[in-house]
């Protein structure tokens, strides 16, 4: 039992902010049976932890996120937040939608203010707008407050979505590819902002991404999902990089390439073949926790031991 001290199962229950316990999603198949998108998915997110999910398109990442948001209920299993099963959406868990989901009849300010007013119904209009403006400024959209979503580019819409989610100061952020439509520069500065906010406020975060570097920079923990249908959690990568990393020097950190290669290997081959040759001792309830590390040049023999 001492061996599993590294795995998630050993984490104290109260440390687990979110616990995903054996969830599954099925859809009726055209032939009358059922297609399993994913099943028996288990993992957890600690308080203040930044958790990224990587997996190929269609494996069910958005579905998992919607279940965590409480917008959908799993067909099997249960999601637990703060010790209680998720039965519906909550203001404690803000969502950045993959499709932006801005209200087209409201301005940028109106969209963010709507969320703020929902969070603090007793606030005066002035206070609501000031608070909203603060977050619009944070995502670099000052000056576009009175534009409507139809007048914004894809990346600008995405940033309004980010501002709206951040503005309600939730306990947890659920982000569905929040930076996918941004240029490298904007993406970098928003990643910095989001990381700073998460560290400052101790927010827990669940983020879907296709960008390996983004995952390495932001995440404490990266969940790897295999291809669907019948997707599962292949393993959980514990990010070995120091917590006070910065974006510019990320690739100079000793373990950077070890993590990066590990993730890319998984995406290129592992995600496809995992299902057909499941490693011995694999237990979906305790997906293996892996911590890729650069071989220490001093003693190459250590590699085998690790």
């Amino acid at each position, binding site marked *: 039992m001492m061996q599993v001290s590294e795995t998630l199962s050993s984490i104290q229950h109260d440390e687990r902010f979110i616990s995903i316990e054996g969830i599954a999603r099925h859809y009726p198949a055209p032939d009358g049976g059922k297609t399993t998108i994913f099943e028996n998915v288990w993992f957890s997110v600690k308080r203040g932890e930044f958790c990224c999910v990587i997996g190929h398109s269609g494996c069910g990442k958005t579905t998992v996120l919607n279940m965590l948001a409480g*917008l959908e209920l799993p067909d099997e299993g249960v999601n637990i937040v703060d010790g209680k099963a998720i039965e519906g*959406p*909550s203001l404690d868990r803000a969502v950045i*939608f993959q499709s932006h989901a801005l*209200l*087209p*009849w409201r301005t940028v300010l109106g969209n963010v203010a*709507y969320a703020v007013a929902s969070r603090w119904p007793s606030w005066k209009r002035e206070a609501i707008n000031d608070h909203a403006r603060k977050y619009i400024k944070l995502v670099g959209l000052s000056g576009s407050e009175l534009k*409507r979503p139809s007048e914004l580019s894809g990346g600008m819409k995405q940033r309004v979505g980010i501002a709206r989610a951040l503005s*309600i100061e939730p306990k947890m952020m659920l982000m569905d590819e929040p930076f996918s439509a941004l240029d490298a520069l904007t993406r970098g500065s928003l990643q910095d902002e989001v990381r700073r906010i998460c560290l400052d406020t101790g927010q827990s975060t669940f983020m879907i991404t296709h960008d390996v570097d983004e995952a390495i920079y932001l995440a404490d923990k990266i969940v790897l999902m295999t291809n669907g249908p019948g997707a599962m959690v292949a393993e959980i990568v514990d990010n070995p990089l120091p917590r006070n990393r910065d974006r510019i020097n990320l690739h100079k950190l000793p373990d950077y390439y070890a993590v990066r290669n590990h993730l890319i290997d998984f995406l290129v081959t592992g995600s496809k073949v995992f299902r057909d040759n499941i490693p011995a001792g694999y237990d979906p309830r305790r997906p293996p926790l892996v911590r890729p590390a650069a071989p220490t040049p001093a003693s190459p023999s250590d590699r085998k031991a690790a």
Partner: protein
Amino acid sequence: MFTSLNARALAVSFCIFVAFLLAWHLATQAAVPVQKMDPEYAKLMGLTATKGTSAMPGPLDVAAKIWEHLKSPFYDRGPNDKGIGIQLAYSIARVMAGYLIAVMVALPLGFLIGMSPMMSKALDPFIQIMKPVSPLAWMPLALYTIKDSSISSIFVIFICSVWPMLINTAFGVASVRKEWINVARTLEVRPLRKAFTIILPAAAPTIFTGMRISIGIAWLVIVAAEMLVGGTGIGYFVWNEWNNLSISNVIVSILVIGVVGMILDQILAFFARKVTYPE
């Protein structure tokens, strides 16, 4: 071309209008051979039929008639002789009354149907059967039960304008994008606030399209309804002037009905533009 599209279109409209007036004028000036006819019938058809000019008024006669109406639109000389303004006011008031009642019924009911697939299925057969019924077919039933011609016309207006609004509201509410509903759900917006801040603005363009169709139909139906029940209103006026063989007045009425119908439609179109959002 140097002039804008609008200017050219305006010029063509003007030319068509002038050509039409000219053709109309010439056609009605042309002498019609005096027909041998039964003197009784000649008496019935009035002087013009026997004098060799067309009984059809020309544009000048109609213009003179319009001027006459414009000078005193609101005179009232007994039940059979009221100014066209008074008659129009009656019709508009009836349309407004029936239409507003229809709005008050159709919008909440449409919301209910749009929000609840069960209610939608339950009420569908009634709507499908009632919708194609000509509103005038309700008239005898209305007259029999209500026993008041004016209120019966209002009822008929209500019946004819309720369906497009009901169907469009239900459709607009049912097809609000799921992602907008999800935004409200994640923000824990209460049902009433959700109805007013998400569903209503999202469905408003569709609802206004229905309201615009309804006002058009209501204005079509009021003329027929008033012809049927008589008494007052622009429909009764048309029929009365036909009985008086005042074709000029009939033509003036057609113009007036068209103009008022256009104005009603444009008012709704204005509101529809206000609530439309580009996606």
